[in-house]
């Protein structure tokens, strides 16, 4: 058992194995109630901490991980200049993420995305719900390529 972070107002969201061997944990720091921070921590001879979305509030209820072929894929709810559900992807342990907008809603009832990879066809499938707080939500589906092009 390897403690990652000790203290109050942390919330662990998910875990993936980056490059199939490195545990990568996604968690939130709520100590500043006005500015939630999302972190990922990868264990390589100790915990390596990174903050994928700077200057951005995020909601813990919209976060998932997936990992195939060395690609880290996660969704989160951004509340920056372009709020909504977004997908972040990157290959490897370091460097910038590619960001894709999934929804533009400012009220986060497009929650709890489910990610499933299909490496054989190079696809990442996403499911998420859209609706309001009262009425039954609709199930939404989308897919993206697992081939990441950081040059575009």
């Amino acid at each position, binding site marked *: *058992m*390897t*403690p*990652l*972070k*000790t203290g*109050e*107002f*942390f*919330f*662990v*969201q*998910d*875990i*993936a194995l980056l490059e*199939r*061997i490195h*545990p990568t944990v*996604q968690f*939130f720091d*709520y100590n500043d109630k006005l500015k939630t921070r999302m972190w990922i921590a990868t*264990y390589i001879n*100790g915990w*390596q*901490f990174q*903050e*994928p979305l*700077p200057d951005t509030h995020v909601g*813990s*209820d919209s*976060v*998932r*991980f997936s990992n195939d072929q060395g690609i880290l894929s996660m969704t989160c709810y951004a509340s920056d200049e372009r709020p909504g559900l977004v*997908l972040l992807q990157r290959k490897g342990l370091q*460097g*910038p*993420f*590619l*960001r894709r907008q*999934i929804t533009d809603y400012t009220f986060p009832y497009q929650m*709890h*995305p*489910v990610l*499933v*990879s299909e490496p054989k066809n190079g696809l990442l*499938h*996403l*499911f*998420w*719900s*859209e*609706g309001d*707080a009262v009425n039954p*939500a*609709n*199930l*939404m*589906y*989308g897919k993206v390529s697992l081939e990441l092009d*950081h040059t575009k």
Partner: protein
Amino acid sequence: MNRNCCADRPYSVGMIPILLVMFSLCEPIRAADAGEIAGEWIANVTGHPTFLTHSYSHAAVVDNGDLYFVYMGAMPDTASFIVKYVNSIKQWTTPVLLGKGPQGDPHHYPNLVMDASGYLHVFYGCHATPLLYKRSKSPRDIKDWSPEYRISPRATYPRPFILSDGRILVFHRSNTGNPPQMSYGYVESKNGGETWSEFHELIADPDKRWIAYVGGVVLDVSNREQPVAHIAWMLSTQNLISGEINGANPMGQYTTVLFCMIR
């Protein structure tokens, strides 16, 4: 069916605490804009407004271009359903009812795995109540299912996995004892869901004060003979008098210690 057979414990818990605090020393990462994802509404699929999909759920399976998805329907009965995308005809099927949990509780979301033969296994309908289980009668067919079985007496947050040797593991929180102890562990089937082991405890609650919230479980199967479970969890305090859990709202009173267990 024998639902009480005991199994060997494949996952021992090696406890070597190492406190590492390397925080805030890194630069934030900028994300490059890569456009939008076009979403389509899956016709006839609606559900609970905030738990149609669930962040803890293993809800989707992809198999040769076909997609299978389980979800929780609308209130009041919060029943579980399955729907399939048939790639050969590019269409989603009509949803099929799997079963119901106790009414009005959004914890009862379903989970889905497919074994190597194509049989579908669903786990649903629990919140400190029996973990409900069904298996498809035919491979890759969502129409007909086995009877409903109870495979763990008091479970919450199930997460199923299938290993390369065919074993099915269902990680979940157990709420047994009086007062209930919120331990975390798994049940196991070595025969395709015919019988299930007793609950194997991995994270204990020795003083009845802590409750484990598991954010995720992932299996390292690089060694087929000895797969390893990695679990990320936090501990929250439990009021010993009222039983109230401090911190049901993550913006509220969490008193947490965040761990990653590496075996």
